[in-house]
């Protein structure tokens, strides 16, 4: 090894907590998110254990309410939303565009501290006794009736929201202003386009959640009836404001995953992405149209039929750019020299699982079917296919793909492929039965159910234990690779992209000399051969 890299630049522990290096901040986020993923996973495990039998065996109804609320809040706000943007994005975006750091390095560190503070406040609420409203915090239950720690938990989410906003702001400015010479918009890797679209949502949707949570907390603490129908307030207004944020937030939880998959598909099919411009603009189209579909969460809320029809129509529209992406990935695979390395297995799993999640989303966009499926396990299965089958799978794929760049070590390929395959089967075994349960009418958020649903619930709980083992596997072999893995070359996969032109791991300011770009991305006809065998 010649010279210092970002990991060996300063060995003191304190240097990590005062760092402004985007790569080190990404590592801080990695560590924090693993912790939250574990907490959310424990809640999910307890839920699946309770649901293995029809009766109330393990937890009371009240505890169950707190468990699924904790699972939702932790997984949505403290794992999925920051997952790819704040870890892989933080690490890779400046490298990909040939910059030395994000535009505002200190703001980047501040947003990590905000995230930790928000997470701590939320954990405090959970360990004080938890919160029983569901992650959607619907009024008037959350404001007038719930006796749990709503205000504390909401404060934690509020603080974490500003972490999201500042991250989005940092990405937007970085992508506009810090690109390497010659790196025009249409030469950007598609990961950058998708994170740009994600950032727009983070910046424009999150403040609406913030003000909504302020109103909710004001009502709870001061007893003023903002959403209280007794003084003319409207509980439905809360739902409108909440979903105005939370539906676009669904796209925060999938667009970065799509971005990762672009990189993986191109690299392991050794081909240019088919229809680059369509895929690039599809990201922004999803971000824009995603702001106009929130009412499809409220078909049975009593909103007007006209509103429901418009929201239903818009929900079909938003599927178009998503479908464009799926078709273009498939077309990229066509006649490619496909290598089934572990990251590619994750990418292929993503395409399949996202497609199932997306198509069942169209079922739910139909007014008549949605009335039937509302608050059933069909909905639960649908959004887990997107958020877990899609986003978490892409996260693992991206983590493996960039692992040599981040750590400078190669992971054991055999184990990585085994984990990828196990995750795919575990996931489907967990969540496919939930489609059946939903179609048969089992409602969500109950800790007991009719005995005829048991077989599907047993399958689902069995799948969950497979999935849990599959998610734990990488923790072991990736940790192993940190100490015993082979040293990674600069570009083990023979990939295009500026991040592969610097050493693994990169030096503190990323590049020894300013890179210059003079061609299109994904030029795999002229890419070096993979060095990894």
């Amino acid at each position, binding site marked *: 090894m010649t010279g210092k890299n970002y990991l060996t630049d300063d060995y003191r522990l304190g240097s990590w907590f005062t760092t402004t290096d985007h790569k080190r901040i990404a590592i801080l986020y990695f560590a924090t998110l693993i912790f939250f993923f574990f907490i959310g996973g424990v809640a999910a495990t307890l839920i699946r254990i309770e649901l293995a039998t029809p009766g109330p065996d393990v937890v009371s109804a009240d505890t169950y309410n707190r468990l699924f609320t904790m699972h939702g809040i932790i997984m949505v706000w403290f794992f999925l939303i920051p997952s790819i943007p704040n870890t892989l994005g933080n690490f890779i975006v400046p490298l990909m565009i040939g910059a030395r750091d994000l535009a505002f*390095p200190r703001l980047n560190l501040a947003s990590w501290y905000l995230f930790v503070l928000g997470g701590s406040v939320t954990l405090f609420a959970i360990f004080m006794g938890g919160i029983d409203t569901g992650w959607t915090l619907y009024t008037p239950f959350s404001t007038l009736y719930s006796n749990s720690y709503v205000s504390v938990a909401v404060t934690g989410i509020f603080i974490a929201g500003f972490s999201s906003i500042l991250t989005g702001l940092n990405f*937007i400015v970085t992508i506009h202003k810090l690109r390497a010479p010659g790196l025009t918009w249409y030469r950007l890797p598609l990961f950058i386009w998708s994170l740009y679209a994600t950032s727009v949502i983070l910046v424009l949707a999150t403040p609406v959640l913030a003000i909504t949570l302020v109103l909710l907390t004001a009502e709870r603490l001061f007893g003023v009836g903002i959403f209280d129908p007794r003084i003319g307030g409207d509980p439905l207004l809360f739902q409108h404001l909440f979903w105005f944020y939370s539906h676009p937030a669904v796209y925060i939880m999938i667009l970065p995953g799509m971005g990762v998959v672009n990189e993986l598909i191109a690299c392991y099919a050794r081909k240019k992405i088919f229809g680059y411009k369509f895929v690039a603009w599809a990201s922004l189209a999803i971000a824009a149209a995603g702001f106009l579909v929130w009412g499809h969460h409220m078909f049975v809320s009593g909103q007007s039929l006209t509103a429901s029809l418009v929201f239903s129509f818009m929900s079909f529209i938003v599927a178009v750019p998503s479908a464009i992406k799926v078709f273009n990935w498939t077309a990229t695979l066509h006649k490619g020299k496909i290598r089934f390395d572990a990251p590619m297995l994750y990418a292929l799993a993503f395409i399949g699982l996202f497609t199932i999640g997306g198509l069942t989303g169209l079922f739910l966009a139909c007014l008549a079917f949605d009335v039937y499926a509302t608050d059933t396990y069909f909905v639960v299965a649908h959004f887990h296919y997107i958020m877990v089958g899609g986003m978490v799978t892409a996260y693992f794929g991206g983590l493996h793909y960039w692992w040599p760049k981040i750590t400078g070590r190669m992971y054991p390929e055999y184990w990585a492929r085994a984990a990828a395959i196990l995750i795919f089967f575990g996931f489907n075994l967990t969540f496919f039965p939930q489609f059946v349960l939903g179609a048969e009418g089992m409602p969500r958020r109950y800790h007991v159910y009719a005995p005829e649903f048991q077989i599907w619930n047993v399958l689902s709980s069995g799948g969950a234990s497979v999935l849990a083992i599959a998610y734990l596997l990488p923790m072991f072999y990736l940790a192993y690779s940190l100490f015993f893995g082979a040293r990674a070359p600069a570009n083990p996969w023979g990939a295009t992209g500026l991040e592969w032109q610097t050493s693994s791991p990169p030096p503190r300011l990323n590049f020894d000399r300013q890179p210059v770009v003079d061609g299109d991305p994904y030029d795999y006809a002229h890419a070096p051969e993979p060095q990894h065998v």
Partner: protein
Amino acid sequence: MSDSQDIAEHLATSAQRDEVLELGMWTFLSTEVLLFGGLILSYFVYRHADPQAFLAAGRETRIVIGTVNTALLLTSSFCVAAALQAAEQGARRATRTLLGIAILLGLGFLGLKGVEYLGEYREHLVPGVNFARTGQDAHGIELFFIFYFIATLLHGVHVVAGIGVLAVFAAMATATTARSRYIAGLRTAALYWHFVDLVWIFLFALIYLPGRSS
């Protein structure tokens, strides 16, 4: 004077630094628009549901204080714009004086706001604390004052933050080093202060003007 010491190590030129700062502030302001936007949307939903009560509530507000405060903030914004001009032309003491006036006007705004809150407290118009109105418009008036307090408090927090930022720039106004960085920073701070001013103009129209025409 060389710029090289004023540029962070991850940026290439002072022009790039200035662009980054300015775009960062515009992006931040877009998030602020949505923050106040959610609140203003809720106001309109309720005003639409109960227009009579909102007109009655508007007549309860102190339009003289509201108008004087609008004048204070507008003048303050003018001073910040003039301070930026002065800084660009190298008039350091004028920059400091103008920023000082802008800060005093901002403090005056907050003082008058306090007087206004005190009056509303005495008239039992504070929801959740001592709201006591009866009659058919009472609920609508209460909703109006909930929004009044949340919106003006949220705006007040922005005014306090803005005064803090302006104070830092006033203190640095006569320093002789890092001038180009100072001017870029002041331009960004001025953008923020103008935005705070602009939000107030919207709030002024929504709070003080309903019910005044007849």
